């Protein structure tokens, strides 16, 4: 038996071993007869030091208890107190499923928004700015027929790749029956605040939007 293992056993006996190490050692202790015997002798030492005079130190109590427990049923995972109660699981399972669905939808929305600039036809490194991307064709010093001339693909407007706002909103609303009102509201508000065009600005009232359209005509 290694000295480190014995040292751990001593510390575990005193409740001074870190929980992670305790878990591992408890597993070994329950199966290793030699380790268990040493553990038992540690208890005997303590009893002698505390002068527990009336107690028989060689009493086969542990052996007797172990023999009786052989006839006892083992506790399975279902009998463990940490297992959830049968009746308590079923009613919220659909809600949990809905919450998972809403979570996946939200994650998809956020992922789409964060991925667009990278997965688009041009990266930020290739196009220093949106204005530069508007330069459709760059002609080399030799004119249009110059072999050095190259064409910069037109950057697709970022908005064109995004899922339209109405579709996203419709998606969230269509799945709202599977989510709680609070989660739904949070989703929608997160969605609204993530709009690039309106980020940092307050939405105009509806009548103002009508006025803008009227002005355009």
């Amino acid at each position, binding site marked *: 038996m290694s000295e480190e293992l014995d040292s751990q056993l001593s510390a575990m006996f005193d*409740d001074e071993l870190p929980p992670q190490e*305790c878990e591992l050692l408890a597993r070994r202790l329950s199966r290793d*007869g030699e380790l268990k015997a040493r*553990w038992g002798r540690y*208890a*005997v030492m303590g009893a002698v030091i505390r002068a*527990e005079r009336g107690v028989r130190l060689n*009493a086969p109590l542990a052996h007797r*208890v172990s023999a009786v427990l052989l006839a*006892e049923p083992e506790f399975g995972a279902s009998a463990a107190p940490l297992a959830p109660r049968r009746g308590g699981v079923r009613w919220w399972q659909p809600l949990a499923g809905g919450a998972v669905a809403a979570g996946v939808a939200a994650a998809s929305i956020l992922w789409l928004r964060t991925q667009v600039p990278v997965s688009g036809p041009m990266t930020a490194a290739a196009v220093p700015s949106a204005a530069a991307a508007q330069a459709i064709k760059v002609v080399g010093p030799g004119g249009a027929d110059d072999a050095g001339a190259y064409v910069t693909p037109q950057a697709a407007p970022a908005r064109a790749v995004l899922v339209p706002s109405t579709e996203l909103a419709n998606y969230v609303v269509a799945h709202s029956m599977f989510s709680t009102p609070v989660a739904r509201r949070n989703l929608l508000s997160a969605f609204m605040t993530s709009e690039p065009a309106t980020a940092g600005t307050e939405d105009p009232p509806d009548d103002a939007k009508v006025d803008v359209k009227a002005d355009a005509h």
Partner: protein
Amino acid sequence: MSADVSDLSLVRRVQRGDKGAFDALVLKYQHKLVKLVMRYVRNPAEAEDIAQEAFIKAYRALPQFRGDSAFYTWLYRIAINTAKNAVVSRDRSPIEYDLDRNNSEESYDMQGRMKDAETPEGLVLTDEIRSTVNAAIDALPEDLRTAIVLRELEGLSYEEIAAAMDCPVGTVRSRIFRAREAIDRRLREVFEGGLGRAEELG
């Protein structure tokens, strides 16, 4: 270090169906439990029977143990209730002696001899174990002896012992371990000589 973490890890194993982990809990607490029960019954053999019953009750109730209290505390409550029920059912008066009032060495010796006298073999074996451990403790270097005594007799944590001995916690752990190793070398000879039965559990 959080209290009761080692007991709890063993308890969780038992709850998952590992009976062997319960052996470790019995080995750890059997002497303390018998000592506790002996406040209620006179006979050591009867105290052992009650302690055994308490352990079995604890095992059966373990699925309901959530870990809100220390396993040690929970086990003691079961033992006390079992002992009280045993006393009532046998129409005996409990011995409500207070250990603090009867803590003279002479009193302990007298009580111990009277009880052990009923089991001569137990007296011999227990005396041999006790003398072996005491001799091993006497032979320990002072720093090791102080560490193990502060731990076992005073029940101090490693941190408290470190403060008392003005050394790091790691040193305390090492000293206690080395003290136990030194004692165990002698004690193992007694047990392996056929006098003890602890090995049988393996």
